[in-house]
């Protein structure tokens, strides 16, 4: 999809004024947090499992080339094919040539962020192959011509009235007077409409949560069952997965599964965990005749060994955005590309460049909630700070900000001068505030005071107060 991250500020401002979005986000921020907490509290080993899951990914990333080779050998041995794609374009072309060879006119799709990353739907449509999203959330946003606003809840930004409107607009073959006021009826209608599509499709495309080197298996984790129908009914199954999805063994996948669903939706285990290994076997009554895996790099190999290396542990659970105050305020679309929230603020600059996505790592309060809930213990705030540093080094941030930082740095490097300046400024500000102790407006601080008051400083600086306390303590101790 087109990268709109440079417009983050404008999009964020619009999002905050969007009543529908704010209503939807209000529900979102309560649901996920409570459900995750309940599931985590019910498993005493959760913290140790996080460390264990992290160690598995660290080990895998250290040996990524070897595990990918081992994985490839097993896929081939089970009758499948592996296609290596360095870039998004390589991956799109690989999908297209498989579709062409299968004479495909329609493909059904399970939910996959990687196919969003490579903008597969628009591409296939232009090439005359019709993609049908089958995950309920993905189906809804496909009808709206939108992109996912959340990596596990693509339609999180919508209210049910909006979905009803879309269904009435598109499903014109159904009776106009039908009742669609409840989420149940919307779900039932989507099920009814999509059922025949699974049977008609020539190719089914899914993503993968894990690739298992030991067995050449790809794993999808879902709740709806659409991914399973997508990969079972058509003649050809294509798995599109990025290279960091590989884990060594089935046990390793099991270990990470224990933190995945709990972190994502607060389930102990998602409804369907499906392990696929190769195409239909000789005495299988059903299943695809062809099984293809497209292994996508698209910039990930360049993150290995850099300060963004640890981001490759990410298992796409969405916990970081579910707990992010900035994400709660602006929603996922403001981030302007495929991956929103804290993980997107680190990943997007890595994959599309900090020159385009520089606003994202700045859209953080550094409250640290994302890191504290990340099942893979990814230091997201630290990596956002690295991006801010790189942005500064390359001179990408605005002149006023650079001047302000330079001004502050001049004093910060000269403690005597710093103390002198603050010992004059603080009492002055304190005096200006008067008895209310709050500023409603202040010159050069309009960006802050336009939305909230600024507390006035105490009349003495921290250093002065500290000195006084230490002196008092010593005197107290002496007496």
């Amino acid at each position, binding site marked *: 999809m087109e990268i709109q991250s440079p417009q983050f500020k404008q999009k964020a401002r619009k999002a905050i004024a969007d009543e529908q979005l704010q209503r939807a986000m209000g529900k979102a921020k309560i649901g996920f947090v409570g459900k995750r907490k309940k599931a985590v509290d019910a498993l005493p080993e959760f913290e140790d499992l996080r460390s264990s899951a992290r160690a598995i990914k660290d080990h895998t990333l250290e040996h990524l*080339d070897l595990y990918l080779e081992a994985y490839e050998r097993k896929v081939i041995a089970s009758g499948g094919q592996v296609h290596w794609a360095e870039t998004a374009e390589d991956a799109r072309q690989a999908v297209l040539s498989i579709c062409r060879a299968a004479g495909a006119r329609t493909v059904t799709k399970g939910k996959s962020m990687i196919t969003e990353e490579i903008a597969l739907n628009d591409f296939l449509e232009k090439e005359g192959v019709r993609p049908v999203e089958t995950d309920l959330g993905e189906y809804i946003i496909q009808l709206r011509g939108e992109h996912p606003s959340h990596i596990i809840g693509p339609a999180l930004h919508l209210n049910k009235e909006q979905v009803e409107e879309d269904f009435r607009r598109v499903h014109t073959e159904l009776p106009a007077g039908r009742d669609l006021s409840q989420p149940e009826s919307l779900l039932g209608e989507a099920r009814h409409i*999509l059922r025949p599509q699974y049977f008609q499709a020539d190719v089914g495309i899914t993503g993968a949560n894990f690739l298992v080197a030991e067995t050449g298996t790809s794993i999808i984790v879902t709740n709806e*069952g659409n991914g399973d129908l997508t990969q079972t009914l058509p003649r050809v199954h294509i798995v599109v997965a990025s290279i960091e999805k590989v884990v060594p063994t089935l046990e390793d996948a099991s270990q990470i599964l224990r933190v995945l669903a709990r972190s994502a939706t607060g389930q102990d285990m998602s409804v369907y965990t499906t392990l696929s290994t190769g195409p239909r076997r000789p005495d299988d009554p059903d299943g695809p005749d062809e099984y293809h895996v497209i292994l996508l790099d698209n910039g990930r190999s360049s993150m290995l060994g850099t300060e963004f290396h640890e981001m490759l542990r990410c298992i796409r659970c969405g916990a970081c955005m579910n707990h992010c105050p900035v994400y709660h305020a602006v929603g996922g679309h403001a981030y302007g590309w495929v991956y929103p929230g804290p993980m997107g603020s680190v990943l997007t600059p890595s994959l599309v460049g900090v020159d385009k996505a520089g606003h994202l790592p700045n859209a953080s309060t550094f409250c640290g909630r994302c890191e504290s809930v990340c099942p893979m213990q990814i230091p997201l705030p630290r990596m956002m700070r690295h991006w801010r540093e790189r942005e500064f080094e390359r001179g990408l941030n605005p002149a006023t900000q650079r001047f302000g930082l330079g001004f502050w740095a001049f004093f910060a490097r000269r403690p005597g001068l710093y103390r002198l300046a603050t010992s004059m400024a603080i009492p002055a500000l304190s005096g200006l505030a008067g008895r209310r102790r709050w500023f409603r407006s202040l010159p050069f601080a309009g960006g802050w005071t336009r939305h909230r008051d600024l507390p006035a400083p105490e009349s003495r600086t921290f250093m002065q107060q500290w000195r006084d306390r230490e002196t008092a303590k010593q005197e107290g101790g002496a007496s």
Partner: protein
Amino acid sequence: MSGREAILGKLRAAASVSTDDAARREAVEKRLAKTPRGLIPARGQVDGEERVALFCRMAEAVTATVERVKKSDDVPKAVTHYLRSKNLAPSVRMGDDRRLKRMDWASQKSLEVKLGRADPADEVGVSHAFAAVAETGTVALPSGKDNPTTVNFVPDHHIIVIDAKDIAGDLETVISRLRRKYGRGDMPRLLNLITGPSRSGDIEQTMLLGAHGPRALHLIVVDG
């Protein structure tokens, strides 16, 4: 193959120019051969009746319905009873499973048993589980002629028969059994791990049952 070499080349350059390749290879081979179990939560580590009860409790917590019967001969009757209670036509779809086949389906007059892959007209699928996991209330179904994958996903109602002795404490135990059955490093084409009936939370995060897979999951646990 150019993409392959380019990606692997970049990975090698980034990961390990300094470390000895033989040592890295050995580390990978060792892990793939030894398949260490990792950390297993205490929850599922109970035996006998306690484990069966935990499985039933966890399955019910994810809105599966659970019924226990004494012996496998009781299964056809339990299936008929389920169909009646849900007001369903007396017809089920199942794979060519030897355990299901040994049961006396003919005792259920008027019950139609269709074998093979499921089609859109099928309302009820019946499967026999390979194993189950008490820790999470999960059922394991490998694909094959005994259990076509379509039986698990196409019908509205899915009935799964589970022998109580096949209920394991944890998924790792099920993985070990799979290795014994299919061979080390090999898998059935498909392994479905099913934890409750299909659902979606995509509209305002309200969890609703019956998204694209079965609307109802009924588990029959055979004690004997």
